[in-house]
């Protein structure tokens, strides 16, 4: 009870802190700082029409690399932790609807995912969303199947290969322009085309593969661990 009240007080005080530090309650007049720069220079610099992707992959590629590592670490950690602990061995059998659906849908989901990944620099989307979509297909397959999936060699290979490729792409930029993850090691092409925007599509692909494989890995570990005891 005391904890609740103290929690409330803390939270309220926090809100006061945050609100009191807002300087004014007007609308910002326009873009400021780097936002403006991105919108002005983005297409020229990167050749990507989708500025978010441009920022994510090109300008702040390092963040993305880091993010991939976050995901990678988390999935490795989850797998590692879960394999170390003896877990329940019998997953509940899935219902027939799920079983059926999981046989039909994944193909199209994967296709959709790949589309999102590959068109990341053109339209909303990119490696992360696409990868997540692809992973959902795996999830579906897993849910439909009654077997306990091991972390397949294929997944591991994709995961590893994608990561290494990302890193090597970075080094490629380093070698060519002295700038890690430089976008221009491949020609920028004409904005709006599929094969344009330097290495952005490539990296999107890598990220997609990576995200898909990592998430699938996590799912499969969960699945393995989550059975009845």
């Amino acid at each position, binding site marked *: 009870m005391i904890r609740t009240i103290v929690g409330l007080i803390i939270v309220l005080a926090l809100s006061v802190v945050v609100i009191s530090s807002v300087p004014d309650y007007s609308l910002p007049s326009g873009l400021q*700082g780097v936002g403006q720069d991105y919108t002005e220079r983005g297409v020229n610099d990167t050749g990507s029409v989708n500025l978010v992707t441009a920022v994510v992959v090109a300008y702040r*590629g390092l963040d993305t690399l880091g*993010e991939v590592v976050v995901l*990678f670490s988390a999935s*490795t*950690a989850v797998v590692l932790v879960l394999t170390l602990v003896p877990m329940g061995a019998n997953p509940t059998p899935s219902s027939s609807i799920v079983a059926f659906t999981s046989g039909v849908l994944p193909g199209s989901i994967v296709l959709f995912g790949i589309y999102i990944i590959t068109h990341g620099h053109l339209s909303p989307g990119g490696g992360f969303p696409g990868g997540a979509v692809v992973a959902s297909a795996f999830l579906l397959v897993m849910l439909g199947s009654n077997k306990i999936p091991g972390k397949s060699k294929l997944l591991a290979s994709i995961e590893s290969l994608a990561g290494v490729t990302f890193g090597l792409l970075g080094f490629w930029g380093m070698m060519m322009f002295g700038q890690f993850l*430089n*976008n221009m090691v491949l020609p920028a092409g004409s904005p709006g085309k599929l094969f344009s925007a330097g290495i952005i599509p490539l990296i999107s692909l890598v990220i997609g593969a990576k995200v898909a494989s990592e998430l699938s890995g996590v799912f499969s570990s969960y699945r393995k661990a989550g059975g009845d005891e």
Partner: protein
Amino acid sequence: MVKALAVFLPLLGAFVNAWLPSKSPRASRFVSYVVLVAGLLASVVLSIRLDAWDLKNLSDSVILSTGVGAPPLSINLEITAGGILAAVAMYAATIFSLHRFARTTPKSQPLILALLTASLGLIYSTDIFNSFVFLEIGSISTIGLTAACKCGSRWEAAIKAALVSGLVTILYLLAVATLYRSTGMLTLEALGLLSGGSAILVSILLLTVIVTEIKAFPLAGWGLDFYQGASSVVAGLYSATWSLAVLLWAAKVLPLLPIGNPIIYAWIGAAGLVFSQLAGLRASSSGRIMGYSTSAYASLLLVAAGTTTGSFYTQTVIVLMVFSSLAKFSLFMLGNPEKSDKWSGFGTIIFLVPVLLLAGIPPLPVFWAKFAFLAHLASNFPVIFYTVLTGLMLEAVYLFRFWSQRSERTNETNPYKPSAVSAVLIILLAGIWITKLSWGALDFSGAIIASSALRNVFHSLFAIGTLLCLPGVFKRIGREKNYWFWLLISGAALTILPAAGNGITFYLLWEFSAFAAVIAVSKGVRASRGTFWFAVFASLSGYLLLAGILLSGGSFAIAGLPAVLLTLAALVKMGQFGTHLWNVKAYPAAPGTIPAFLSGTSSKASVLLLVAVALSSTGGSLPWGRVIAWIGALTALTGAVLAAMAPDYKKMLAHASVSQLGYILMGLGLASILGWTAAFYHTIHHLIFKMALFLGAAGVLYRTGTSEFNNLGGLVKKMPWTFAFTLISVISFASIPPLAGFGSKWLLYNGLVEQGWLPVMIVGMFASVVAFLYSFRLLHGVFLGQLSPRNAHAKEAPLPLLIPQAILAVAIMVLGFKPTLLLNFLVPAIDAIPGLSGLAPIIQGDMVLTTMGTWNAWMVGLMVMGIFGFAFVFYWISGHKPKYVGQLDIGFAGEIPPSADEIHYSNNFFRPYKRALAFLPNINAEKIFSGVNKTFGMLGDAVRALFTGDGRTYLAHSLLFLLLLFVFLNGGM
């Protein structure tokens, strides 16, 4: 390209590794090693290119730009010289820890490499969101590793780390959003553009995040639990990589926060230091102790951020943080909190180096940084200086306790742990390297003691004292370890000590000698408690000395506070009045000839310090000389009484040593020529007789294996020579005329009367009378009385112990019969010191004259020897020859004595005296110190009540801290 390799190679390694482990752990380990060694090489190349190794321009940097364009559009990694040094340490630590991970959790390699990547990224990152990404990688890898490495409480440690990391994420992102919305940029420099409410908001958010992440005091709870709960190998790697990275990142961010006056960091840090170290006193688990130490260093970082700027700041922070992290790494690798590991003597020492480093003992690297940093504080922020010094002292106490408790398990097999040994070696190498860099600060001109004659006295005293201890070093008993090396080091440092020309040199040599002696003491059997007390008091006196030196600006000059602190340092080192506890604990514990060295030689260092203080403060008089003389007199008295009651040979000698040092204090406090002559005379004399006595004790211990009076006695038949030398020493220190000891008393009393300090003199005289009690007890308890059958096998002490005693005994005789040999040298030297009052004694041939007294030692000696010789010879040649009867053949009311042990009266020897003293309140130092201990314990308990062990409480702490900061900043700005 090298830049990129140095930063991103581990990442590639991690990815590659993710594919390998299931096939072959060997291959994955091989990959890791290759990657890490390559990365290390790249870092080393970079560091050489940046010229980082001379620690001058640690802010120099190369830029590794990434992405497209330039900041603020893209992200740059700024590889600073300081950062690259830290990176080298991180690489090294990771390499050294791999094999332990390989043994326990082979599949964790990708996580280790990810953790390293995160650490590297964090120290190089210049973008606030990018830092966040690396922060998250680090947190996740840490949590993962913690949860994956088998260890009792890993889940809890992981959960707490995860809880904190969750909160940090939220607060940090809030700060990022505020920052971006206010400035439109995410680089670290953008922090400087903030103003008004958003500045405060971002500052308090980031400060809370930083304090939480670096585990500084009020928010350290999770860190303590984490260090305690995580397996040692994880905690070790964590402290050497991630913890270090966070600290350096905090060091980078803190000066940029738009917080107005950064002194607030210093206050948070200083207060936190004291409080957390108070709580640290109560910590028992070794992991938790490391946690408190981490917290101490985090607080130091805050203090540094608040009080220093520029390259000095960088230098201080880099050296402090890098080496303390390495030290913690090696401690964790050695000290598994879960298993009671087994140590050999070698392991004990290896274990000590990191502890010494954490405590900031020279010449280990942290010392240099701490010294410069504290000097800066002392001259600019005195209050913070005292606070920090107190905190550091408390830290030293629990670190040494930690060490002594660990080293208690000294025995048996295979202490060899490559990781820790390598780290220790690195630390030592770094110590040598940094010492070499700082060599210019040292000064061996001997400027602090202007009189070269006095300097030479001390030089030769220390050298001779050490040399005389050396022959006996291989006569060790039982499980005592080899200590000659440390004896030699300590003695060498002492021998150079009088040549020190400035404060830092003096301090360095002083600590060097003290802690070499600590190690030497630790080589004894069951020496851990003794070593602990010795280490604590040595570091207490070290810190007092440090404070004094720093406050007086490196010299020993001027009266006032610095001089008082320096004097206190000397008094503690001498074991005067209350602080004798360490002598009494350490001497009995110390092996072989070490007590002789400590009591005879090493204690003279504090005399040197007092002389230096006196000479440079007022040219001869100590500050409050009267007080010092009183301290000396009272110590002489209480020491003598305690010595008379002591149940143990070495313990008695320890009390006696403290008591005798009191006379030196009385002489020095007098600040007259006679007083100083007496003090110097007694210094020399004390060295001679105390070494002879302790060497004799070493011989007895060597032959009988015990130093308790209850088990000794009657050894005169077995060890006549040892007895003879001990007898000479005893007669001398009881100041019975024909031998040397009388001279010091005579000079001292004349000096005291000359200055009219009669009450001091009376106490001193009483003490010297009480000295008879223990001098007899000493001879009787060990050599006379009944020989216990237990010691029937005892033989004469070995020659290496006997010969130095013989030399010393001869010296006593010579000094006793011809004191003018020494006085002719001492008196002019002391007469030349300007500030001393009083008249010099006049020496005419063998006659010494003062205004009131005369003393002709030669004639007295002749008379005593003549009469004694006559009586002896007469009895020898005339009449019948006495028949020797055995020891049990005594007039025992017609009975046969049951056994030698039963009729040897040595237990509770001066019982009537004790009964007569019964009206005094029963105060003893041990009680006082245990009271102090208890008080600190209660304070510590009060502080650590904050750390409830509930993860959510820690989060509440963070939030409350944030609110308080807000209130404070709004009130203060």
